């Protein structure tokens, strides 16, 4: 069984374009980046970071990310961390080879992408992460039982966020603009995990949020990455 954020099964693809990538391949943050690389058809090499041996806190990893987190991107001399910053960099760099996911051509549109990406990072993740951790990680990794109060707190936060999304998505086909953007895609990894839990109903019971999720999940790049997230 794959455990989110931990062991990787081997390398993924040989690098041709000089872009190295060091990460565990199934953490949500890593998936976020892989998704963007996939949307742009960018080549990358995935290098595992072994959480079981706490490789993420080893000196050689800390030299890349002093916070001891994954993923980290290496592109030539550039070392970058924080998955959304990496995603923005990759999407700008490869903008001519895929959909326009950051909308830089318009100040107003790119501002909307930034806005809903902040909402994803600040509001959405705060609700969904404890649900994911308690339901999917605690039993598998710690052999424990989910803390129902933490799940309930997460659900309460997530419900508020999804209510806002439902209203927003009744006005706009996607969160930031009518077209899909990084702001939408950033939601995919955790949403995918949650769909395997009873909390899927939080999305399914909201028609616009459901349609939005269905359209994201059906994108070829999303299918490819989410297939690696869970077994």
């Amino acid at each position, binding site marked *: 069984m794959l455990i989110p954020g931990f062991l990787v099964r081997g390398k993924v693809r040989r690098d041709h374009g000089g872009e190295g990538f060091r990460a565990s391949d199934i953490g949500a943050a890593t998936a976020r980046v892989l998704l963007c690389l996939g949307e742009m058809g960018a080549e990358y090499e995935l290098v595992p970071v072994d959480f079981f041996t706490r490789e993420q806190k080893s000196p050689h990893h800390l030299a890349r990310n002093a916070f001891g987190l994954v993923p980290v991107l290496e592109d030539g001399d550039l070392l970058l961390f924080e998955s959304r910053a990496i995603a923005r960099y990759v999407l700008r760099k490869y903008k001519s080879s895929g959909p326009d996911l950051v909308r830089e051509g318009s100040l*107003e549109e790119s*501002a909307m992408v930034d806005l809903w990406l902040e909402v994803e990072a600040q509001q959405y993740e705060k609700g969904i992460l404890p649900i994911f951790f308690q339901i999917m990680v605690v039993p598998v990794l710690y052999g424990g039982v989910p803390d129902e109060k933490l799940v309930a707190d997460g659900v309460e936060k997530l419900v508020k966020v999804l209510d806002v999304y439902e*209203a927003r998505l009744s006005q706009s086909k996607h969160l930031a603009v009518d077209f899909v953007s990084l702001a939408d895609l950033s939601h995919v990894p955790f949403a995918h995990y949650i769909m395997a839990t009873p909390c899927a109903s939080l999305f399914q019971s909201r028609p616009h949020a459901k349609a939005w999720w269905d359209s994201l999940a059906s994108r070829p790049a999303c299918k490819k990455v989410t297939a690696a997230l869970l077994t």
Partner: protein
Amino acid sequence: MVVKVYGKAQAVCPQRVMHCLMEKGVPFELVHVDIDTMEHKRPEFLQKQPFGQVPYIVDGDLELFESRAIVRYLAAKYADRGPNLLGRTPEERAKVEQWLDVEAINYNPWAFPIVFNLLVLPIRGLPANEAEAGAAVDKLNKVLEVYEKQLSKTKYLAGDEFTLADLTHIPATRYIVENCGLSHLLDDKKHVKAWWEDITARPAWKKLSSFVETGGSNYSP
């Protein structure tokens, strides 16, 4: 038409936005939102900011919330004036984005409970969660140790120029240092302390501090 910033002057997130406007020399009007009477949770406000938080801005036809999205927008819109706040190359820009996210995801989660428990709740005469504040202080200290390493290599977080990545830290950190009795968190870190003294000496930040203290509502450069 002047940019309108809706929020409370003393609040951290509106200060981030106003500081950015002052760095760029862009006039604005601060429209006071009365947090104390829960104006930000009323339906009219929620129409503009559905999470019931400040600030939001109105710039012509554009309405925007989330202070870090707003400052990115302002820095891009006014790229031609004032300091360069976004980096000059794609790689520099990426570093700015990285440290903006570090502030949002690794720094703010500890800065916020410190300011909330040690400053905001006492002002409101409400009991604070000392344990939560204490735990947050320990976490923030560890984060600042990482900043110390970075700032021993670069003058500012994202490189050798002041950018949005430094700017977004200032309002909350000011309260931590000046109002929560926690200046020692920075004082024992040589490079963090030097960085802090430098960024808070910026004329635009001093202007913003004075604007807040004097109850300003209209700014013109």
